[in-house]
């Protein structure tokens, strides 16, 4: 009798264990596998349309518009961001809202929520505004914009300070200098600047709320009449609705 009870309990636990294993596969392993496959496909596509800016000479058409190969796939592409030594090497699209490219890939098709980095719809599509905010998913295995969270460590930024932003008119260097860890509704996401005083307030805000700032003072930025900031934003998990923002100057 006693043996039978123990045997029954063991069977029950094995059953529950089996169910947990199934749920783990269904909820964790399978999506990861699907995302993995989708990610691989997307990376292949990126490699095919990536602007060839350094290694081989550009054709005339590409010289005029380095984004042309990417535009042939999706004319909503507005730029290409690269940070050497990281996984960040992506096209940037822009839609009429901040939702479309959360769920759809560079080719505009649903891609299992992998999305594609995108420029805030309120920002100037040629990055000529005072600030340009680019969003991307924080994925496992350092995919998409996951590397942004690594910049919370000053040492990481110091070794990955330089990036490039390829636009229709050519390649622009980006000098990253600050990292912010803020809520998703923080003033950092302000994108409409009308007056100089408002821009100065925004600079002061960055300098007061950033996790750290390298190499620049607020006055340096305020003195720059042609300042264009690039903000790369992704979710982080330090607190509810936390966001990590890497900030650079487009040169």
């Amino acid at each position, binding site marked *: 009798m006693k043996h039978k009870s123990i045997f029954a309990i063991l069977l029950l636990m094995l059953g529950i264990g089996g169910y947990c294993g199934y749920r783990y596969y269904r909820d964790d392993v399978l999506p990861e596998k699907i995302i993995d496959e989708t990610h691989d496909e997307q990376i292949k596509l990126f490699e095919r349309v990536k602007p060839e800016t350094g290694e081989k000479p550009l054709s005339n058409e590409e010289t005029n518009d380095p984004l042309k190969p990417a535009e042939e796939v999706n004319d909503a592409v507005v730029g290409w961001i690269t940070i050497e030594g990281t996984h960040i090497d992506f096209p940037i699209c822009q839609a009429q809202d901040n939702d479309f490219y959360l769920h759809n890939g560079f080719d505009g098709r649903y891609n299992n929520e992998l999305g594609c980095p995108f420029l805030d719809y309120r920002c100037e599509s040629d990055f000529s505004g005072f600030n340009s905010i680019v969003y991307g998913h924080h994925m496992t295995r350092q995919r998409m914009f996951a590397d942004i969270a690594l910049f919370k460590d000053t040492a990481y930024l110091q070794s990955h300070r330089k990036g490039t932003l390829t636009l229709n008119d050519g390649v622009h260097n980006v000098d990253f200098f600050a990292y912010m860890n803020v809520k998703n509704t923080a003033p950092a*996401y302000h994108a409409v600047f009308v007056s100089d005083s408002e821009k100065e307030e925004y600079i002061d805000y960055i300098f007061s709320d950033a996790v750290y700032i390298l190499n620049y003072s607020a006055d340096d930025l305020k003195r720059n009449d042609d300042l264009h900031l690039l903000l790369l934003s992704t979710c982080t998990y330090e607190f509810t609705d936390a966001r990590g923002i890497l900030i650079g100057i487009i040169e």
Partner: protein
Amino acid sequence: MIAKRLFATMVSSLLLFNTVSMTAFAEVALPDGAVKGLPERLTAMDSDGNVVSSDTGEYFFHVENMQYGTTYTKDVQLMNLRDDKAYHIYFYVEPLFKNGEIDLEKGCECTFWLDGQEFYKGTVTGEGNFDLTKEVYDCGLYNPGDSHTLKCSVIWNDLDVLVGVDNGHRLIDINGEHVLVGSQDSGYVEGEIEFKWIFYAAVDENYDPPKTGLLGVNNTFWIICIAVLAVLTGGMLLLVFFKKREKQKEKMHGKPDET
């Protein structure tokens, strides 16, 4: 007779009224996200109770028969009566028309203050320490319940604009000062000017922070469940094993006694 210290009698009035469609000359392009006019319960109201048109953001400043040397002022209270959102309020100036023999656009000085802090001095048409017809002025951020006062004063203080005016008026010197004397001492000249302020607010009403959360599932729940079950099962098996061994030991110890 009485030499009037500058140009005389005048009925002056500052008329504020909302009318439709006046000619607009300004070339100010509103930035993306800025809405011309003021959203509901974002209010601009002068001391006479005249409010800025919420649809167009227009507030008219009309001066007729301006008297030389008299300062005309207007206080406009800017208020955010909403309880949900903060807004930036901006304004700029559009000259509308001038009329009469005297070019009041040039003869008047206009000063703006925000909460007592002077930020503009120049002509009524917006050309001063900066060009209010082309550059918008940021009246600040208005959190729910915030209120600020925009004050404007206009004074006709330049006699040079009378040069060339030929309607019987003449300038004479009295005690070293230029004084305008009208024909038959009437002292009237016709002058009228109107300009309007355009208010607007920058809003982020449609902004919804994108959820760029971790998709590649970092869900440890099921793994924890499996681990707990494995520990429990292992524990039970160990328990059974030890019990069984205990029984075997008891059997072993019991054997000699039996023999």
